Each structure stands twice: as C-alpha cells, then as structure tokens.
C-alpha cells in the first residue's frame, strides 16, 4: 500500500515534469504556434513576437546566465565551505553564517545595477551578482553537511587508519553529499528564476521581451517572455526539488 502511494507520487511528479518540459520546448521552438496562442491572448496588438531576438536565443541566454552563475557559485561555495572547515577556518564559521543573512537585505537587481559602472552592460554584472548570491548558501550547506556526519563514524574512519584527507574524501563527503547537492539545487532554481532580471542591465534572457512589452504597452511581448520563463522556472524547481520544499525545514 505504502509502496504504491510512493509510486503514484513519483508518477505525478514525472508527469508534471514532462508537461512542463513539453510546454517550454513548444514555446521555444514552435515560434508560429506560440504566436497563434499570443494572438488569442492579446488580440488587440498588431505585433506579437519580440522583434529583436528569437525566443530560441533568449532561452539560450537565460539558461547560460543561470548555468554560468551556478557553476561559479558552486566552485567558490565549495572552496569557502572547505576553508571554513579547516582548523584555521573554523573560527570564521559563524561569520559566514551571519554574512549570509546580511546579504539577503541587498536586492539582487540592485547589485546587478551597481556592478554596471565597473563591468558595463551585458551578461557580466548578472553572472557576477548571481554568483555572489549563490556562494554563501552553498558554503553553508557544505559546512552543515560535513558537520552532520556523526562523530562515531569519523572516529571509526580514523580508527581504521585513514588519513585526514582520506577520511574527508571517502567518508565525510559521501555522507554529506545529499545536503550539499540540496544546496546547489536550490541555488540553480533561484538563478533560473532570477536570470529574468538580467534584462534590466541588458544581459539578454527572457526578461527582455517583458521589459520591451512594459515599455511599448504590448501584452503579447510581455506574455512571450513571461510564459516561457515561468515554465522554465517551474521545470527547474520540479526537476531539482525531490522533497517538497516545506519538508526541508
């Protein structure tokens, strides 16, 4: 009985993922079909597709912004987390925790804008800003993952003669892995969604038609950016969130 209900949950989840993936792919690749839908949703307009770039390019830009920032944040977050767990770095653990909550007070899009005088317009300020926002959550998960390894296990590894780095690689990391991966997945989901804001600093991505639509009062442009970016964000969330969010504590 229990097994069957788990199966059903997994089935619903995969059905949802398949539907979202199909919707995202359809909007991206079938420009004519999507235009027909936009004509129905925004009958008052005279132009329905954002003229500057096709949706395939915008979608690729959106994914590239999120992927680049997530990869950089993962590398740097890992390094920072590992550093905070060394004998010297352990002193900085609480500081990392506190700085993480402090960073929440700076709006993502504000950091992107503030970077513009240094980097110019384009993808750079977006990738840097999203990377900076991703580092601390990933570092925190590395720290809490490694710290959650029971001391007995650690002692046993030392007891059978493992060196410190062997213990880290062969015992602690595998046990901490689910927590660490959970942190990375969360950052990816946030980045896929936040990359929409990159349009503010002319980085490309699915926010471009939305902003153009607000500017020209064109419902169709707005929906052309909003619908695929929502489908993509939900797809990333469903794909990467194994346990429902409210159970993660």
């Amino acid at each position, binding site marked *: 009985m229990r097994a069957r209900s788990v199966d059903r949950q997994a089935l619903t989840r995969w059905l949802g993922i398949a539907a979202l993936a199909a919707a995202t792919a359809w909007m991206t690749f079938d420009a004519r079909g999507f235009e027909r839908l936009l004509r129905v949703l925004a009958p008052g307009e005279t132009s329905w597709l954002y003229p500057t770039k096709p949706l395939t390019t915008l979608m690729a830009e959106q994914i590239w912004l999120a992927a680049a920032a997530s990869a950089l944040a993962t590398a740097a977050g890992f390094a920072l987390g590992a550093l905070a767990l060394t004998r010297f770095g352990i002193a900085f653990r609480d500081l990392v925790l506190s*700085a993480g909550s402090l960073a929440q007070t700076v709006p993502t899009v504000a950091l992107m804008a503030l970077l513009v005088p240094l980097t110019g317009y384009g993808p750079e300020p977006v990738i840097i800003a999203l990377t900076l926002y991703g580092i601390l959550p990933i570092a925190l998960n590395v720290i809490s993952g490694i710290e959650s390894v029971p001391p007995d296990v650690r002692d046993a590894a030392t007891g059978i003669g493992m060196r410190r780095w062997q213990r880290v690689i062969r015992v602690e990391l595998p046990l901490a892995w689910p927590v660490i991966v959970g942190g990375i997945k969360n950052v990816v989901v946030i980045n896929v969604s936040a990359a929409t804001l990159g349009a503010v600093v002319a980085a490309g991505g699915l926010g471009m038609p939305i902003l153009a639509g*607000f500017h020209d009062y064109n419902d169709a442009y707005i929906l052309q950016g909003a619908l695929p970016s929502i489908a993509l964000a939900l797809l990333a969330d469903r794909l990467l969130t194994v346990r429902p969010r409210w159970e993660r504590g």
Partner: protein
Amino acid sequence: MSRTEASLHERARAVAVSGAVLGIVAALAPFGLVLRQTRIDRGAGVSLVDALGAWWWAIVACWLLVALLARSRLPLRPRGVAASLLSGLAPVLALWQAGVFAAAYATKAGDLSRVSLGPGFWLTAAAAYVAVFAATAWLEPGLLRAALSYGPFAGAGALVAGGALSDLGILKEYANNADAFGKQFALHLGYVGASVAVGLALGLALGLLAARRPASEPAVFGALNVLQVLPTLAFIGLLYPVLTRLSERAPVLASLGVRGVGWAPVVIVLAAYAVYPIARNTHAALTSLDPAVIDAARGIGMAPVQVLARVELPLATPVILAGLRVALVQTTAGAIIAGLVGGGGLGTFVFLGASETASDLMLLGVVPIVALALTFDRGLSGIETALTRWKEPA
C-alpha cells in the same frame, strides 16, 4: 566558563586579526574614493590613504591596535570593548574624512564634480563588520554589546545628519532629489506595509488551515511553492493583461489606480511572496506544540477558539514572528521592482541611476533599502529573543 566558550573566544582572535588586515588592505586599495568630473563620468580612483591626508595614519592605527588587542592577553571585557570601539571607529573616521575631502575637491573642481565612496571604502566597512563581529564575541550579550555593534551605524547617521558629508556624491544626489526622495521612501514603506499585512493575514489563515486539516497541507504549500518560484518580472507580466482588462471593465478599480502597472501588481506579487514564510512558520509552530498543554487548556473548559487565541497562538508567536521577519526583509528588498514597472518607491532611483550609470543615484535607492531591511531584521529578532526569554525564564 565552559571549554567550548573558551575555544570560541580563542577563535575570535583570528577573525578579528583578519578583519584588521582586510581594513589595512582596503585603506591602501586603489579605489577608496572615486572622483568624477561629472556625475555620470566613469571616474578615477584614489586610495583612502592618498585621499585622507594626515588622517590615513589614524585609520591604519585603529586597525593595527585592533590586531594587537586581538593577540593580547587582556581580559575579555576590556579587550572586547576596546577592539569593537576601534574597529567601529575606523570606517566612521574614513567616512568623515571622505566628506572633508569631498568638500575640498568640490571647491577645486567645480559644482559638477562628484566624489563617491568607492570599493575601498565599502571594503573598510566590511572589515569593520568582520572585526566588530569577532570583538563583540568577547562580551556578554546585553546593552553594552548592542551599543558597540550598532554604534558605527549611529556614527554614520550622525555624520549625515550633521551635514559633514553633504559634499559626497550620494548626498548631492539626495539634495537634488530631496522632495522625490521623501515621497518615494514613504511609498516604498507603504508597499512593504501593505504587502506584508496581506501576507500576514493570508499566511496565518493558510498556516492554521494546514495545521487543522492535514489533508489540505500538500495543496496549500504546493500552491504557495509555485508562487514562490515565479520570476518577479514574469509574475508582474502575467498580471499585466489581467489587471488592464479588470480596470477597463470596473471603473471603481480604475479610480483606485488599479492598472497593469503601478501599485496593484506590485502589492499582489509582494504579498504572494510574503505568504509562504509566514504560513510555513505558523504551520510548523502550531503542529509542534506540546499536546499536553492543549489537553490541559481543554480540560479547564476552554472553548476551541479560546484555546487558539489564549494558548496556541501566544505559544506559537516567536516562531510566527521569525517567519514575519523573513517576509519583511524579503519584501523590503523585493519592493525595488516597483521602480521598474511605474510603481515608484526607492527602486526609482536605482533604475534611473542604472540607465545613466550614475552610481551615486543608485546608492541613494539601495542604501536606504538595506538600512530598512536591517532595521526590520534586527528589530524583530530582538522582539523574538525577548519573547522567548519571557516565556522560558532561565
């Protein structure tokens, strides 16, 4: 003193020293202040050491003393007080002298010129945060520790209020936009207040529903989770055609200013994001209460409504407040988006500044947002601590 406490105090030494080292690096870094011929000029950098004349040694001396104190054998209390005072003093001194430098530069280079706080200054502020964070760990929690932690903010506030910084770029932007600033600040606060009020009402209701009817839990949190994942711009975009048509059909709404852009989509979106943390914490708090307490309340003849209002909610308050705090901080930062969709608020300055690459104008929007968010965060967590202590006397 326990062994772990002693080792915590030892560890804070290394953190304080690294804060001091960062402070000295920041003082020497090439972009302490940025000098511009006009407000949108790219500008040239000058290090704090070069800009601040004879005062540079006072700032470096602060950091050297902090490092010495951190390595010293002084008792915890004097060491903590002296090190946090000096660490907090360094950025306030730098800020004050940056104001003096800006006044001199303005008379030399003309009214159009601008002196802005550069990365080197912000790094000095970060160094002070690190060093104060470490040094206050040597003190017992209490009024003294709070005063030393927030003293630098008071110092910066006093410099602004006293007019010592009025020649810095950000305050020149303020002077040019003083009327608009007051209006947009109030509007920003209005967005935060309205959205969090709606979020609180819905969050309490949905959290209570999910706690009372466990069958509804996946639906409630599933829906809130979907809202949480929606990209802000796309969410507002989705509302645009809906609200535009609503306001065309219903003149009452139109007369209230409900349109596809403006206040309506902003408040709807921010409120939708604010529901989740409040609902989650309400649900978690209500489901984790000791059943014996509720049985006892029923046993003395309380009606279900009384049990909720007089027993359950008071016990759940600290946890609900923690959710409210997350919602407030998130909404204060999130309300910046209003500036992008014709809703005004402090975001107006950020996006206007971004379109002109005028950093000082952007900061005129960002600095008050961060200050507001920090105030909400610290204020509410203070209330949480007070409530928890009051409930569980040590």
